[in-house]
C-alpha cells in the first residue's frame, strides 16, 4: 500500500499536472471496467448472481484462525466450501485472481435502523422508526424494512454484509431483525426475522423522553432530578409489570391449551409477542449507557431471568462484574461520540472497547447509525484499535464478536468452511479508510459494487 502511494508520488513529480490528471482518470476508468467485467451484465439485477467461485492466491484473513498468506477460498451454494493454502479449485468454478488482495468475512453491524428510515430530517414520510405508544412488542422491524433503500447498497459496497435493524421509541420499541444486505424482499434479506426485543431501559433523564431513544429537544415539560428519579423508578416498575402481565397471560393461554374447559383467554398480541423474551429463549436488547443504568439492566435481567444485550454501553466496562455474572454482552455504539462530561478524558469513549476487553466483557462495535453512515463501521473499529484494542480484536469486534452476540457465531463472522459466504475481497485491511473493496459476496452471490453513489458519479463525472 505504502509502496504504491510512493510510486504514485514519484510519477507526480515527473509528470506535469495534465498528464497526471489523465493518469488518474484512466486508473479510475480501468477500475470500473474491471468491476463491470466481473459482473457481466448482471448489474441489471442488483442482487447479483449465484455460482461457484474460487478466490485464488489471496491473503485470507479468516478471523477465527491464523491468516493464510496465499490461499484459496471456494464459495459454493451460498456457503464457504473450502478454505486453505492448498485448496483445489473445483471444476467449473469461476476463478477470481486474488493476487495482492485480502479476503475478509463480511462485517456485521449489530445496531442500526437499516431500511426503516430513508431521510430522517424533514421527510417523515420516509421514516418508519417509531410506533405510537410506549409498549409495541408486536411491532416487527422486518415488516417495515425497505429492501430497496439506497442505504443498503451504499453500506454493503464498503464491506458490511449483515446488520441488525431495530425499531426505536417508547419503552418497548418492538422486535429487531437481522438482515443480509442483499435481497429483493425483506424475507430474502432476513437472517433472523425476529431476533430480539428492543427496550429503552428507563434511566434518569430530563424532558418527556424515557431515556434511550429520542433527544430531549421536544421532550415535554422540564422536570427536576427527583422527579426524574421517581419517573425512572416508576418506569422500571411498569416494565416489570408488563413482564408479569405477559407471564400471567401466557400461563392462562397454556392452561387453556391443556384444558379447554377453562375460559378462553382473549388474545393480546402485544403480550403474546413477549413470549420468547420472557422465557429467555430470545434476547432482549436494552439500550443503556451509564454505569448505574447498565447495572440496573443487569439486575433486571437477573431478576426476570431473561437474556440481555446492552446497546450503547458507554460505561459498560465499569459494570463488568454485573455484566459477566448475568452473561450480558455489549453492542458498543460510541466511537463517534463525544465524551459526555467535560472532565472526561478526550479518549474516554475511544478506550471503552479495550477496557471491556480487559475486563472480560463480551462486546462488539457498532455504528449505532440509522442507515446512511453504517458504512463507516470499519473505522469505528479501527479507532478503537488506535486506543488500546489490538488490531485483531478490532477486526473481530465487527465480525466474529458481532456474529456471536447475534447468535450467529456458527454461521458468519469468520472464513470457515460451512459458514454463509458473506465475503469481502479488498486491496488492504478492510478497517482502513483508504482500502478499496474489490469483490463482494453475500450468501454466496457475487454483487456489483454499485450504489446510488456510483450511479450519480457516473452521471456527472465527465460533465464539462
Amino acid at each position, binding site marked *: 500500500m*505504502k509502496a504504491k*502511494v*510512493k510510486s*504514485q*508520488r514519484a510519477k*507526480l513529480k515527473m509528470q506535469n499536472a495534465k498528464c*497526471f490528471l489523465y493518469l*488518474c*482518470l484512466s486508473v*479510475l476508468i480501468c*477500475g470500473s471496467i474491471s468491476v463491470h467485467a466481473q459482473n457481466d451484465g448482471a448489474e441489471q439485477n442488483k442482487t447479483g448472481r449465484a455460482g461457484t467461485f474460487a478466490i485464488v492466491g489471496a491473503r485470507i484473513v479468516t478471523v477465527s484462525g491464523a491468516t493464510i498468506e496465499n490461499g484459496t477460498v471456494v464459495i459454493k451454494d451460498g456457503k464457504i466450501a473450502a478454505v486453505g493454502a492448498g485448496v483445489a479449485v473445483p471444476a467449473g468454478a469461476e476463478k477470481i485472481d486474488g493476487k495482492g488482495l485480502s479476503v475478509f468475512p463480511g462485517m456485521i453491524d449489530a445496531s442500526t435502523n437499516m431500511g426503516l428510515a*430513508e*431521510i*430522517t*430530517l*424533514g*421527510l417523515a414520510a420516509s421514516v418508519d422508526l417509531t410506533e405510537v405508544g410506549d409498549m409495541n412488542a408486536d411491532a416487527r422491524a422486518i415488516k417495515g424494512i425497505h429492501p430497496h433503500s*439506497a442505504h443498503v447498497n*451504499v453500506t454493503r459496497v464498503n464491506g458490511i454484509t449483515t446488520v441488525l435493524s431495530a425499531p426505536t421509541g417508547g419503552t418497548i420499541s418492538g422486535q429487531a431483525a437481522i438482515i443480509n444486505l442483499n435481497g429483493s424482499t425483506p424475507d430474502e434479506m432476513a437472517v433472523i426475522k425476529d431476533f430480539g426485543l428492543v427496550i429503552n431501559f428507563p*434511566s*434518569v433523564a430530563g424532558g418527556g423522553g424515557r*431515556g434511550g431513544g429520542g*433527544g430531549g429537544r421536544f421532550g415535554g415539560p422540564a422536570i*427536576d*432530578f*427527583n422527579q*426524574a428519579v421517581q419517573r425512572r423508578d416508576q418506569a422500571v416498575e411498569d416494565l416489570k409489570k408488563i413482564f408479569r402481565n405477559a407471564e400471567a397471560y401466557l400461563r392462562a393461554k397454556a392452561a387453556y391449551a391443556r384444558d379447554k374447559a377453562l375460559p378462553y383467554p382473549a388474545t393480546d398480541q402485544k403480550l403474546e409477542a413477549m413470549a420468547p423474551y420472557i422465557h429467555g429463549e430470545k434476547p432482549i436488547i436494552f439500550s443503556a*449507557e*451509564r454505569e448505574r*443504568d447498565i447495572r440496573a439492566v443487569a439486575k433486571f435481567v437477573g431478576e426476570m431471568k431473561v437474556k440481555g444485550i446492552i446497546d*450503547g454501553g458507554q460505561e459498560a466496562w465499569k459494570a463488568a462484574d454485573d455484566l459477566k455474572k448475568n452473561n450480558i454482552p455489549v453492542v458498543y455504539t460510541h466511537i463517534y*461520540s*463525544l*465524551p*459526555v462530561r467535560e*472532565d472526561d478524558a*478526550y479518549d474516554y469513549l475511544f478506550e471503552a472497547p479495550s477496557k471491556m476487553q480487559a475486563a472480560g466483557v463480551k462486546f462488539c462495535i457498532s455504528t*449505532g447509525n440509522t*442507515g*446512511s*453512515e453504517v458504512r463507516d463501521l*470499519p*473505522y469505528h*473499529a*479501527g*479507532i478503537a*484499535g*488506535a*486506543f488500546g484494542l489490538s488490531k485483531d480484536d478490532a477486526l473481530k469486534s465487527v465480525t466474529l464478536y458481532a456474529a456471536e452476540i447475534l447468535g450467529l457465531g456458527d454461521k458468519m463472522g469468520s472464513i470457515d468452511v460451512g459458514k454463509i459466504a458473506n465475503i469481502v475481497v479488498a486491496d488492504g485491511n478492510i*478497517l*482502513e*479508510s*483508504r*482500502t478499496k473493496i474489490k469483490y463482494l459476496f453475500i450468501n454466496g452471490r457475487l454483487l456489483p459494487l454499485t450504489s446510488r*453513489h456510483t450511479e*450519480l*458519479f457516473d452521471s*456527472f*463525472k465527465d*460533465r464539462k
Partner: protein
Amino acid sequence: MKKITVYFALLFLLLSSLRLPVAAQSKNSVLIKNATVMTAVKGTLESTDILVENGKITKIGKGLAAPAGANVIDATGKYVTPGIIDCHSHSMLDAINEGAFSVTSMTRTRDMLNPTDITIYRALAGGVTSANLLHGSANSIGGQNTTVKFKWGHPVEDYPIADAPPGIKFAMGENVRQTTQAPQPGRPLRYPRTRQGTIQTMRDAFVRARDYKQSWDDFKAGKTKVQPRTDLELQPLVEVLEGKRLVHCHGYRSDEHLNLMLLADEFGFKIATLQHGLEAYKIAPEIAKRGTGVSIFTDSWGYKLEAYDAIPYNAYILWKNGVNVSINSDSDERMRRLNLDAAKVEKYGGVPEQDALQMITLNPAKQLGIDKRTGSIEIGKDGDLVVWSDHPFSVFSRVETTLIEGEVYFDRKKDGQLRLDMAKERETLEKLDVNKAPATGGGPPRIPATTRQAERDDAEYGDGGHR
C-alpha cells in the same frame, strides 16, 4: 504548627493551580527529530527534522542541531503533518444563530468565543490547530465568522488570527426556509419560505448595501449634510461588494449554489467558499471557472432531502476540475477525525495522497486567506504541526503531539499526567465545605446526560453532527 503551614501552603498551591492541561512552554524553539514529514506541498520527507523558532519554521532537514534550550521531540517512527484546519466549525461559540431576522450580518462570532470550551482541547487531540468559526445557517445572510487558532489555555484575544481576512456566513436551502421545522403557534412565518425567496433576500440585502454605500459617498462628497448611519448590518455587505470580506455560503443543491454565484457575478464579487456543497460535483466546471472554493463533508449524505444526492466522489470530481476543495466537520465530534475523512478521498476516486492531505491543511488555509502563514510545512510558515503515531490516514493512527506556532497544546503523555492531577485535585476540592452536600435537604442535582449535546452543527439542523 510549621507542618501545618507546609500542608496548607501545599493545599493552596493545589487549589490555585490553573486549569491549563499543558503548561505553555518557552515559545523560543522546538526541534522535531527524525520524523516522516508530510509537507503537504513538497511531498513526504523521510527521517527529517523540523526546527521551529519564535513560532516559525526555520529549518527543515536531516540531522539538524538543537539550539540551546530547545524543546526536542523525538519523532522516530512517527509522522508529522501540518496542523489540520477545519473550514467549517461552531466550536467554542456560546451562541451560533441569531434567528430573529433573515439577514443578521451585524452579528459576530468573535463576540461569542468561549476559550474554556473543552471541545477545543478535544479538537487539538485530533490534530486540529485552526478553524473557521461560522455563524449558523438559520439566515440567508448570517453573521461574521472568526478564523482562529486553538490556543487552549490562552486568553480569548489570542485565538483569532489577526491577519486573516474577515468573512461572513450565507446560507441557502432547507435551514433558511425553516420548512423542516413545524411552524410555532403564534409566531409568524419568516420570509423566505422558498428558494426563490432566499436568493431574493440576498439580492435585496446587496441592493440596500449598494444604496448605503452611495449614501456615504454622497456625504463624503458634501452632497448631503447629515452623516448617514453606521449600519452594522450593511457595512459588512459593502465589504463583500468591495471584495474585502469572504463569503462562505452554506448550501446543498447545485442549482442554489449556482444561483448564488450568478448573483455574485452580477454584483461583481467572488464567493470564497461554497460550504457543504454536497452537489457541487454537478456544477464543478462552473465553480472552477470562478475560482470559488468548496468546503465539503467527505462523504456524509442522506440525512435530509437536500443531502440525498451527496456522493463521496464529490471531492474527486471537484479536484479533477481544478477546484480548491477542503474537507470540514461542522461538528465538535467529527472534527477529531478529519484525517480519516481526508483518507477517504484517496478511496473514492483516487485523489493522490498529498492532494488529499491538502484538503484538510493547505486548501482550507487558502480558502480562509491564511495560507501565507499556515497549512503546509515550509520554511517561514507558522510551526503549526501534528505528530502522529502512524500514517495520519491510517485508522490506527493517534495524535501524539499538537503544536501551534511551536508551542505544545496537546501531548498524549502529558494528557495522561493531567488525568491523575485532576483526580487528585477533585479529591482535595470535594473535601471542602463549600463542595459538600448540605447535611439535610438540598436542592435536586442536575439530571445526568447520556449523550453530550455538543455536535453543534449548523443551526442544529443536522448538517454535521447527524447520526
